[in-house]
């Protein structure tokens, strides 16, 4: 097995790390990387755009793996706010917990959080799929437009507030639904998508039949005076 190329953030600046990673050609064969001693730094491994596997060995601060494209990033620790924000494609996995705004406005790819996620998980999501093994905080999937949010635990208050076309699966208790979010019947294609996501996330112990699905009631799609109290 090829040995991973290693960058130690105790010795190398973030700028140098990114200069190296951003310079990788689209078809690079230097595909295995490890980043040591992140020590909670912000913006670690942001803007990647190459088919590499990168393992971050420790906790990270804000925006780790932000705007990721094509890379597969493993965070072997906890992640601060905005992990994998605006991800375009690829995969980001957090071994621990993630803070608020995980996967915010992501447009593609898969974000897996093995622990819990804080508030606003999947806020403004635009096509990213997010699978959280544990629970998510309040206002998760706020104004979520496209993609799936799967929650193995509970969801906090105002889940899916002002939701567009994203689909939300929750296995545990939902504290409350936000404006224009309602429970939906699970169609065969929804169940298939859920099973596929659970498998890709590596959570085969979770059974699709234990989840409920939530989506937009689409009552706020057209500005109407009868909805004034909801605006």
């Amino acid at each position, binding site marked *: 097995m090829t040995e991973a190329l290693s960058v130690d953030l105790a010795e190398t600046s973030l700028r140098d790390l*990114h200069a190296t990673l951003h310079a990788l050609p689209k078809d690079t064969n230097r595909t295995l990387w490890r980043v040591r001693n992140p020590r909670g730094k912000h913006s670690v491994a942001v803007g990647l755009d190459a088919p590499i596997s990168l393992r971050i060995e420790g906790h990270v601060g*804000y925006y780790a793996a932000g705007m990721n494209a094509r890379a597969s990033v493993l965070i072997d620790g906890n992640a601060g706010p*905005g992990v994998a924000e605006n991800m375009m494609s690829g995969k980001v996995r957090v071994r621990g917990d993630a803070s608020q705004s995980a996967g*915010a406005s992501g*447009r593609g790819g898969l974000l897996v959080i093995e622990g819990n996620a804080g508030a606003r998980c999947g806020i403004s999501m635009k096509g990213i799929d997010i699978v959280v093994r544990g629970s998510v905080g309040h206002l998760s999937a706020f104004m979520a437009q496209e993609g799936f949010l799967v929650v193995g635990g509970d969801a906090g208050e105002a889940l899916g507030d002002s939701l567009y076309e994203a689909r939300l699966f929750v296995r545990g208790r939902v504290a409350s639904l936000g404006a224009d979010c309602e429970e939906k019947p699970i169609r065969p294609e929804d169940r298939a998508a859920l099973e596929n996501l659970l498998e890709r996330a590596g959570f085969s112990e979770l059974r699709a039949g234990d989840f409920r699905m939530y989506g937009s009631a689409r009552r706020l799609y057209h500005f109407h005076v009868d909805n004034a109290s909801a605006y």
Partner: protein
Amino acid sequence: MSAPRSLPRFSATFDRHAIAEIQRAAATGIYDIRGAGAKRKLPHFDDLLFLGASISRYPLEGYRERCDTNVVLGARHAKRPVELQIPVTIAGMSFGALSAPAKEALGRGASIAGTSTTTGDGGMTEEERGHSRTLVYQYLPSRYGMNPADLRRADAIEVVVGQGAKPGGGGMLLGQKITERVARMRNLPAGIDQRSACRHPDWTGPDDLAIKIEELREITAWEKPIFVKVGASRPYYDTALSVKAGADVVVLDGMQGGTAATQEVFIEHVGLPTLAAIRPAVQALQDLGMHRRVQLIVSGGIRGGADMAKALALGADAVSIGTAALIALGDNDPEQEYQKLGTTAGAYDDWHEGRDPAGITTQDPELFARLDPVLAGRRLANFLSVMTMEAQAIARACGKSHLHNLEPEDLVSLTLEAAAMTRVPLAGTDWYPGKEFADGR
């Protein structure tokens, strides 16, 4: 002979507009939504005058002696600052709010004139990237169409916190304008009324903003200047906090600045007039020792070279135009087309309805085909050139060899309000409200 009768008298309080609004609200049950900026009378640049030269100030020869106009934006941190030939830029306006030919025309006009144009709340289109020599990419709360590839092919990045027409308000694009192309760029169903968020999804407050700016710099190799745009609300603190967060440029938009669509009550009753916002912003930069190191771009109701020169004299590094640029492209003309819509040229502001006969604030293919982007771009370039020459004429009369050498001492105020807001003395006096008298009173 009939007995004398009093003339019908309209109330100054319940004027015709107020009455019509009450009637409209009673009939429809919904507030008025419209485009453009504040239409009420506000303290503005008309309330300032230049003094020109005198015995103690020597003028420069008009048309002959040099009066430079270039401006460098973003040298504080960016490896590749933006240099513009003229200190007037085109403000952010979205594809979606504007047609693709209109965005192309803005790019063409700005490029001919040697300045920049700006994307908007709908992502970057090929039309505007292809035709804009210098393109500023807006990073907005909605993040519609946001992708790192566009971030990298932009010349500068503008983190939008707010805009003057609606500080604290999100955007709104009604279903009539959400065509398949617009919807696809925004990851939304076509035809729905679409909200643009009022808060960024992944940061709150100045400390987070600093981290967000650093992320944007890391992704773009610290090459691009980073602007922070704020609506005029608390300009002293917003400017200071933007500087603290690491901004290269602060964009300050007053309440006369236009919007594609917002509630009329918001446009007319929230925020500060542009004139009132400049001095506090400049003061913040001066207090931090960052005036001219962090550039200040002022927008909101800039109509020509005189407004530009006055904004620069108050301490701005550049101005930005939106509404004036649309008018230059050909909006609100000709009259008979607007009468068909039940309005009149010059007053048309239902930009959100997408029925603009000029083909600018529309997504209707038949309407936007009316706009020739080459001709409209030429008209914009002409306007930008006239603005610049007007400002130069004033600057030369004040003895300045660069527009940036204009200073508050070149100005007087015509009203007490303007004097108080700008600390430019009232004409014929050496006093402005708040200034102590010579004897200490």
